[in-house]
């Protein structure tokens, strides 16, 4: 027992002195996720909502010909701007997204009961002109149909006779499902933290020590190899855990800066969330510690191990990518699959959907069982004589 602890303590202490390991495990990993997420969500959501709901500034030419129309548009959120001398050029050069032009004979046609025309000048190829143009068009159509209905009603006729068909749209998306992509990505940051938290340690403790030829004297001690392995795994796990806890706390803090209000969502990122998320990710700490050590054991040098492990980083992303591209409904069996369990579990926790104790238990059992299997294989590799000897 003391031999394991000795190895563990030695590795932890040594690696705490290593700037690169500390940076990647305790700073880069845990900070990257929450900060990136908060900034990305805010920028995207604010930008979209501003275009869709904020005041709509549109240069208007000929506003004097249709004062009531302009008043009605103002009520809907239009902020008329001074007319432009050359609207076509302004639109092409992106000085304006869209320009409204009211011709001089608008009033004459209106009073006669003939269709009065207004023009929208825009450049469909300009990105960003689409939303304002559609909004303005919507406002004008709304005004037109309201006035049309009232013209009928003024004549003592029913406006409904002019509406033979009504299309009812039933958008079933919820803010949650609209934010599905974001929520799909989020659990990855937790997995990422666990993976990155232990990666440099795993490389250093096996491939690095072999390269430095410090593994051979260690193995020369009269201690079972698996005990040394357990000590090393423990050190890797400790760094992973620290990284994970920091990430969870980071998200908990970032939760206050997420534009949840605007999405109509509520993120529940309190202590309960941190506790459950960390618990759910625990088996991954073991799995990754063993897996990383195993890969590092096969590598001939520090550099080679680094290359392999960077490539292996794709594996934990896969469930996140699949889930965000094809949002699959969570089924109970998924909690039995390591990685998938963490993906589903964390996104449920984020949304405040309670994750049952049974699900967490299942994830823990299967995750640790998987880690144990990998551990036995790794122990076999550790017993090989070739491991200690550097090429």
């Amino acid at each position: 027992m003391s031999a394991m602890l000795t190895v563990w303590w030695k590795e932890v202490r040594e690696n705490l002195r290593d700037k690169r390991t500390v940076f990647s495990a305790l700073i880069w990993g845990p900070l990257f996720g929450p900060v990136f997420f908060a900034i990305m969500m805010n920028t995207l959501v604010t930008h979209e909502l501003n275009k869709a709901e904020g005041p709509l500034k549109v240069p208007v030419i000929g506003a004097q010909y249709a004062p009531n129309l302009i008043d009605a548009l103002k009520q809907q959120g239009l902020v008329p701007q001074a007319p432009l001398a050359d609207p076509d050029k302004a639109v092409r050069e992106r000085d304006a997204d869209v320009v409204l032009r009211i011709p001089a004979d608008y009033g004459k046609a209106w009073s006669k009961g003939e269709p009065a025309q207004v023009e929208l000048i825009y450049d469909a190829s300009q990105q960003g002109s689409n939303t304002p143009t559609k909004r303005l068009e919507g406002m004008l159509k709304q005004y037109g149909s309201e006035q049309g209905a009232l013209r009928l009603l003024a004549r003592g006729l029913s406006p409904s006779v002019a509406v033979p068909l009504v299309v009812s749209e039933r958008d079933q998306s919820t803010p949650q499902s609209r934010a599905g992509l974001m929520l799909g990505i989020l659990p990855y940051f937790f997995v990422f933290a666990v993976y990155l938290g232990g990666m440099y340690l795993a490389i250093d403790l096996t491939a690095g020590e072999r390269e430095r030829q410090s593994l051979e004297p260690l193995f020369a001690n009269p201690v079972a190899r698996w005990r040394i392995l357990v000590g090393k795994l423990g050190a890797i796990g400790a760094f992973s855990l620290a990284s994970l806890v920091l990430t969870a706390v980071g998200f908990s803090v970032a939760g206050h800066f997420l534009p949840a209000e605007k999405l109509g969502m509520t993120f529940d990122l309190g202590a309960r969330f941190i506790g459950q998320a960390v618990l759910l990710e625990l088996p991954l700490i073991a799995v990754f510690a063993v897996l990383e050590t195993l890969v590092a054991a096969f590598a001939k040098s520090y550099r080679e191990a680094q290359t392999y492990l960077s490539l292996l980083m794709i594996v934990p992303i896969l469930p996140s990518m699949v889930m965000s591209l094809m949002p699959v409904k969570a089924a109970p069996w998924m909690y039995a699959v390591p990685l998938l369990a963490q993906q589903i579990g964390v996104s449920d926790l984020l949304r405040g959907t309670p994750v049952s104790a049974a699900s967490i238990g299942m994830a823990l059992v299967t995750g640790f069982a998987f880690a144990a299997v990998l551990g036995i294989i790794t122990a076999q590799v550790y017993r090989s004589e070739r491991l200690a000897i550097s090429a």
Partner: protein
Amino acid sequence: MKMNSRMIMRIAAVVILVVAFGLQWWGRQHRAGDADTHGDATSAPASASTVSTKPVGKPAPPKTLKMGKLTLTACELKRPHSAATVAAFCAKFPVPENRADPESRSINLKLAILKSDSAVPAQDLVVYLAGGPGQSAIQTYPDLAPAFAPLRKHHDVLLLDQRGTGDSHPLKCPALEKLLKNQGDTAQPSIEQRVQWVGQCAQEVGKTADPRYYATSDAIADLEAVREALGAPKLDLVGVSYGTRVAQQYAAAHPDAVRSIVLDGVVPNSLVLGETFATTLQHSLKLQAQACDKAPACKQAFGDWYATLHQLYAKLKAGQPQQVTFEDPYSYKPVSKALTADTLAGVVRLFSYSEVTAALLPLAVNEAAHGNYAPLMGQAQLLTGDLSESIEGGMQMSVICTEDASLLTPRPQDEDLLLGDELIKAFIAECKVWPHGAMPKDFHAPFKSSIPTLLVSGERDPVTPPAFADEVMKGLSNARSLVVKGLGHAEAINAGCMPDVLDDFVANLQPKQLKTQCLDRIGPIPAFVNFNGAAP
């Protein structure tokens, strides 16, 4: 475009609601209680059916929602005059008809919960209290849905059909309705005639219900029972029109259960329903006339519109009913009907409920004054044409007879006003035959509270003018009263950015710090100066 059809639907809703009122008001000749512009007119009660997504083979069991002690089943709330529906969870809730006697007849209340978009909704529950009295919260909700949209991002919404309305043991009077339908609008029924009908209705209703137990205080006891069954969440009350009376009475009886109150179309407790209808309409008409005077195009087209209206009314009242042939608004087949002073008063009153229809009044009245009666008759026909019922007359009688009639006194000073004082006399006479309970003690005492409260009024509301809100404000220590320019009855809550203001209020409970600048953008639409609209 979505907005496009929504607008048409809004207008259709306005017309239809007006239709609904037409029946109430016109048929019974000034019988409407306090009512809502956004009321809808469903002829059949919207019975929410369980979700019917049945895959071939085995039907999926309906989804359920557990809240407190209640288990609700997924249902779809039908939207009147549209195939669109609102997804909700519904339940039946049995209560004793006579709360003083637990052994009395059990009646079922219908309630619906609209789940928030949020997976973790706020703990408090928003409750919509419908107007009328006599409207169903569940049936009228779709018209108010925009007002609740921002709130629903974080709050679940409770819709409870008040007893006697909707699917909660409605007090229906088929005989009375049939008589009204056949009666047309030429002969005005005498008070004796109407008293007889009301008596007949009381007999019909009496077969399945005891009308004495359908007043406001029974309703607030029901709401409290439902709240407790749901796990006793705090309530955010949103009362509209008569619903504002329910909200104030509930908050006074159960202050600890209420987190916030929103009142739109405010009815002060001191108000006796029916007493002020004539004077408030007159005030609204004056404001409409002033707006026309200030708009050069309107002034030029109609001159002194207020005077024209009253000259026409006096002429119709003095002379014989004028037989008019015009095209039916739906079928376009010629019909012939008599134009009376009451026809005019009916169109003027009901069109004043909404800013949209109010914009048509100067033109319609002016044309009629110059001999072109068809538009006014068409509009009147729209109001009665589709005789659908959105208000349970029996329940309305129970409320008014219990809580108001005993305080009504004839008002001869209203005789020269457009609505006159017939309504008051009729209420007094009818309530002598309608079985009703005793008025609770202090029922009309002013509402005093420190619960955060937001009051909303339309400037030209012909039923519950902003002055009513001012009166309620006197008893409130943490409240704010908002008036929206140019709007009519109970439509401010849906207008412009008001839904966001509401959401802000319920979220932060800071009525005095509310940002309301965006409300300044809302305003009346200009009056039509000819059949093609206002000035361009």
